[in-house]
């Protein structure tokens, strides 16, 4: 019988960190110890998803690519339009690879994972979130922004890094947290109610999950409990007696990353798991789900380039005021320049491989052209190329959602030059000769159209694909 499980995985933590200690002085409440991850102004859940998915695919067994893409987030960039299609385009997948959204609630990410595991052939399950809450709220301080991606399939598709031994799930309708479409924050019922429901559901799922895996609790080496409801997670751990095996450590430096968190926490566990170890993933979200996995001998050789912990250590701070402006909670004065016009759908449609996939061209003379030049015979995918800053400037006059614009002329290894915006960088950190990698971003939004394109960012520890 074929085993199903994880062929490769990737996680992405954005570069910026909000010090929770900075919140209370401004908002009058909230905050706390540690820091949370913050998506940049030019990131949305789609671009975060692309970053994690690129890492998962880079770590995939040779020749293995997904037959479907399942994308899940609580905060989709678009409604009434699929977001997975932009991820699909940025990954340069064939148009025969289907791509779907499963959005709106953390539970949808579990659904996406189940859909992927239930598919025939390899499936790419991408989940990302940008967690928002009103200034001073617990959601604001306890949330984090991240993305995770799991390439799932069977051992017929390729060697698994972790096999799913069994799973169980329960669904129940009750009101614990909720959000009306269009709002940027969620509301919560009194905590004790949800705690009781989740603890009972979690315990049942735990028992059934172990049964499905054919294991007893003692054979589980580590347990990852993913819950937006902190008290419920603690209570469940106590009830099922797994305190010593509880994997944790993302609360202090990342926060709860919503849709991304099941994959992120699993990635963090896989980053450290030895072959043969059994990991149980428990998700409490409008029900309870348990997945029991066992790390394989393949795992140590096929971890992604940047571990979750390496990324956690690599961030840089963002001031609370700037964070509030990025999330739209603080309306700051824009530069006195006209806002950019919306990108043309038809023009973007014609240049899809360039705009979404960062594919240039190469002529018969070997010269690489960015953007692609008419008449060049060959496509030249450049998203994975590294480059060097030939010169740069800082523009305090140009329109940007977060001025100033830092801009560089980048010469790529192996040929090609592009004058391009830099991101995830502070003014003083840029220098001629600096090394950069490409990252898929949202340049601006106009008339509700997100203008996606690529930017360059410094090569750092915790980066890369």
């Amino acid at each position: 019988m074929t085993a199903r499980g994880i062929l490769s995985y990737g996680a992405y933590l954005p570069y910026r960190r909000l010090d929770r200690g900075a919140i209370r002085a401004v908002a009058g409440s909230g905050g706390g110890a540690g820091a949370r991850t913050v998506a940049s102004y030019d990131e949305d859940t789609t671009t975060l998803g692309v970053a994690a998915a690129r890492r998962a695919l880079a770590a995939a067994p040779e020749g293995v690519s997904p037959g479907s893409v399942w994308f899940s987030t609580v905060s989709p960039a678009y409604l009434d339009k699929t977001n997975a299609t932009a991820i699909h385009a940025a990954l340069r997948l064939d148009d025969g690879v289907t791509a779907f959204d499963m959005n709106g609630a953390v539970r949808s990410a579990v659904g996406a994972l189940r859909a992927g595991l239930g598919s025939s052939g390899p499936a790419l399950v991408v989940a990302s979130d940008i967690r928002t809450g009103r200034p001073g709220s617990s959601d604001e301080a306890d949330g984090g922004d991240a993305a995770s991606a799991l390439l799932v399939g069977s051992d017929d598709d390729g060697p698994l890094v972790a096999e799913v031994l069994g799973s169980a799930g329960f669904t129940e309708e009750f009101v614990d947290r909720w959000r009306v479409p269009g709002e940027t924050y969620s509301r919560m019922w009194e905590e004790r109610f949800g705690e009781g429901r989740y603890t009972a559901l979690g315990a049942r799922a735990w028992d059934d999950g172990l049964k499905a895996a054919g294991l007893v609790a003692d054979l589980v080496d580590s347990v990852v409990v993913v819950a937006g409801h902190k008290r419920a997670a603690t209570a469940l751990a106590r009830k099922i007696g797994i305190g010593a095996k509880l994997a944790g450590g993302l609360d202090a430096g990342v926060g709860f990353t919503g849709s991304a968190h099941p994959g992120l926490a699993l990635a963090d566990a896989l980053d450290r798991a030895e072959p043969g170890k059994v990991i149980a993933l428990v998700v409490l979200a409008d029900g309870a789900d348990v997945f029991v996995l066992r790390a394989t001998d393949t795992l140590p050789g096929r971890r992604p380039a940047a571990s979750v912990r390496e990324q956690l250590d690599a961030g840089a701070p963002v001031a609370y005021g700037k964070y509030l402006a990025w999330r739209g909670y603080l309306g700051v004065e824009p530069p006195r320049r006209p806002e950019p016009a919306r990108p043309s759908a038809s023009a973007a449609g014609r240049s899809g491989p360039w705009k979404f996939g960062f594919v240039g061209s190469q002529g018969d003379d070997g010269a690489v052209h960015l953007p692609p030049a008419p008449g060049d015979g060959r496509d030249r995918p450049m998203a994975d190329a590294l480059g060097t800053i030939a010169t740069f400037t800082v523009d305090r006059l140009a329109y940007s959602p977060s001025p100033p614009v830092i801009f560089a002329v980048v010469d790529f290894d192996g040929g090609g030059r592009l004058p391009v915006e830099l991101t995830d960088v502070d003014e003083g950190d840029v220098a001629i000769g600096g090394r950069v990698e490409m990252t898929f971003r949202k340049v601006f939004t106009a008339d509700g159209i997100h203008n996606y394109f690529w930017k360059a960012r410094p090569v750092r520890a915790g980066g890369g694909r």
Partner: protein
Amino acid sequence: MGSHGIRDRVAIVGMGCTRFAEHWDKGVDDLLLDASGDAFASAGVTKDDVDAYWLGTAQSGMSGMVLAKPLQLHDKPVTRVENMCATGSEALRQAAYAVASGAYDMAMAVGVEKVKDSGYQGLNAFPIPTDGTSRTLTAAAMFSMVAPAYAERYGVDPDALRRVLARIASKNHHNGARNPRAQFRREMSVDAICALPPVAGGLSVFDCAGVADGAAAAVVVRAEDAHRYTDKPLYIKALSFVAGNGSGLTDPDYDYTTFPEIVRCAADAYAQAGVSDPRSALAMAEVHDCFTPTELVLMEDLGFSERGTAWQDILAGTFDLDGELPVNPDGGLKSFGHPVGASGLRMTFEAWLQLRGEAPEDRRIATTGDRTLALTHNLGGYPGEMVSFVSIVGSEPGA
């Protein structure tokens, strides 16, 4: 095949130029009426005497009717032209070629821009629908990359280069202060300019052209007819234009210390005019000093200075009003202001005043009387992707 030019076949016999300023009380119509009216009067002709019109405006209106309506022209051909910041020069080029072809006896080139009605700072291009992947940087930031590149290539200390750039702005403000048509009429010291905060790269607002409304106009006829209208016509010696193909943006060998389009454009102009050593041949030059690093590089690209030495010539005062080759004696874009469609013709207007000895005493170039040729240089675009125009005009036929 060949670029032959129209040396001495067409002459400018009348010109007009408004003050360049924030003309809150004047619209496009008013500016066009002022500039064209002055040019008609200068040539002693009426709007009906002019057989064809070329209107240069980058984004203040569409079609020839922008001119035909305020002037109430009757059944005249009017062509609106646009070539970025070289738009005014393009209007002159087309009008001159039309007369040279024999199609018309008399043509007018008018350039106008009303930029201060947008409510935004700086210049803002009309948005053409695109795929959203093109650069969104300001021109100031694009040109700011020239300064560190130049310092690096020629081993000039960046602080020393900062003072060279300020010296360019200070010179142009010195000249503009003596020009009643200029937007900014205040002298600025090198120290004062260096003390300003940067807005784009190392450039401050005083490294940038003034943003102004304005218009300028010229009447052109066949050279042999010129003396019917004026005793002191300006003969067109060369009109050269190069539209870049944008290769500088993608070519890793391009180093931001030169504008190749301008080098080629200037070579064509010098060939048309028979000029071999511009530094000694020209009485003056009006160049496109949109930003101070631009003027620095132009001194080399136009052949006024050897490569890597313009910064020294600038400090030595070579291009001052009383220098060996005065550059931007009217204050340039920096101090005169830059109404996009009008600037090219404004440059020609200064040549018109200086070569005819009509510039006011305190602004008169040191070369007056000794030399009879003036160069105007007008560009549009950015380092790596630009259009370039060079003209040479002279007060003597056959010279």
